[in-house]
């Protein structure tokens, strides 16, 4: 059996996932990183995107949507600190789609608004991104 990594995905509200895996592929600010066992200790910032883990001789893959956060690797243990994360199979597509529409409407409205009133723009953009990612990941489930 191949050497494995312990992967933990935690959010402030719950532990989303813990399992022994063979590879973790995560979206960082500078692009994707793939982490294999014996990886050097690393701390990195994640952007909203798809995170996947491979196990069972790389035959099985599980997808997650993460909304950004941090990832720490230390001695074959990967901790993903996500603001929000969801397993592909548990994403509520209908809800995400509706929320995404709402968010993009708000975005559009905000772009019209004078600069002064754009306070929530980044927040709204983040929301939008998060819902997009959820939908994208939901597509992946087989």
């Amino acid at each position, binding site marked *: 059996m191949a050497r494995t990594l312990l992967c933990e995905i935690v*959010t*402030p*509200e719950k*532990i989303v996932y813990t399992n022994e895996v063979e590879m973790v592929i995560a979206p960082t600010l500078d692009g994707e990183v793939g982490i294999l066992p014996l990886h050097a200790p690393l*701390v990195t*910032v994640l952007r909203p995107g798809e995170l996947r883990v491979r196990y069972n001789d790389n035959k099985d893959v599980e997808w997650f949507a993460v909304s950004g956060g*941090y990832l*720490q690797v230390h001695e074959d243990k990967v*901790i993903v600190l996500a*603001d929000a994360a969801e397993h592909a199979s548990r994403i509520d597509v209908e809800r995400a789609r509706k929320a995404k529409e709402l968010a993009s409407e708000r975005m559009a409205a905000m772009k019209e608004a004078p600069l002064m009133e754009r306070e929530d723009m980044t927040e709204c953009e983040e929301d939008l991104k998060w819902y997009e990612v959820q939908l994208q990941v939901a597509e992946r489930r087989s």
Partner: protein
Amino acid sequence: MPNLRDIKQRIVSVQSTRQITRTMEMVATAKIKRAQEKIEAARPYAFAMMEVLSNVARYVQNATHPLLEEHAERSRIVVVTITSDRGMCGAFNSNILRITEDLMRGEAAAGVEADLIAVGKKAIGYLRYRGIEPIASYRDISDKPTFADARAIATSIIGRYSAGEIDAAYVIFNRFKNVAEQKAETYQLLPIEHKVVEADTEEAVGMRAEYLFEPSAAAVLEHLLPTYVETLVYRALMESAASEQGARRTAMKSATDNASEMITTLTRSYNRARQAAITTEIAEIVGGAAALEEA
């Protein structure tokens, strides 16, 4: 002599009150458990967060960040006051509001203006009554706080602190000590105390590994600190939610006990009154019979 019917009515009314308080007590007991589980669920994240934070801090010597910097002057602060949306929980809210007012009075005496962020209907109502206008208010989140709520609160504070509009931020909330005990507490959110990024480093699980940081240690820290403040706010909200149920349970338990005691006393006077009435009646009959015999 007290009227029998009146006493009976009071017993019935106290009994129905007791039924309500007992139900609320049981509901609160069930909710404490849920609230506690939520706190537990947040623990792994908080631990991992502290671990990463202290790791990063070791690499960024003399870390400078707007959120770590103490402002030389102190002219405006923000106070987040966390209360409940519902009453019937003893001194839970009044403690918080008293501390809030003490703090505001103290700051005002030092010439510092305090902006309030009110969480919970009780704080909102009280402040309106006192003619204080909070800069933001949140209602209906005290029962089931989410991380998004905490984030909304934290983001506005962080933004204003970085912009130099405010010089400190505090949160006042009930810390959940155990099911029977809550303690109203003031906690400093900003500036982030240096001990957070320093003191823990030595004992930090004894890790001495060389870390890589992407994009860089400073950049990681920059992202990490706001999130840290968010988790602090989230924790305060959750502790408050659990404390609220704890306080309500205690308050309702003593209300139920008091009602039971009152029913005992009332039942006793009811029986006494009934006995007195019977005695009087017998005396009357005996008296009447004696009068007839004599005749």
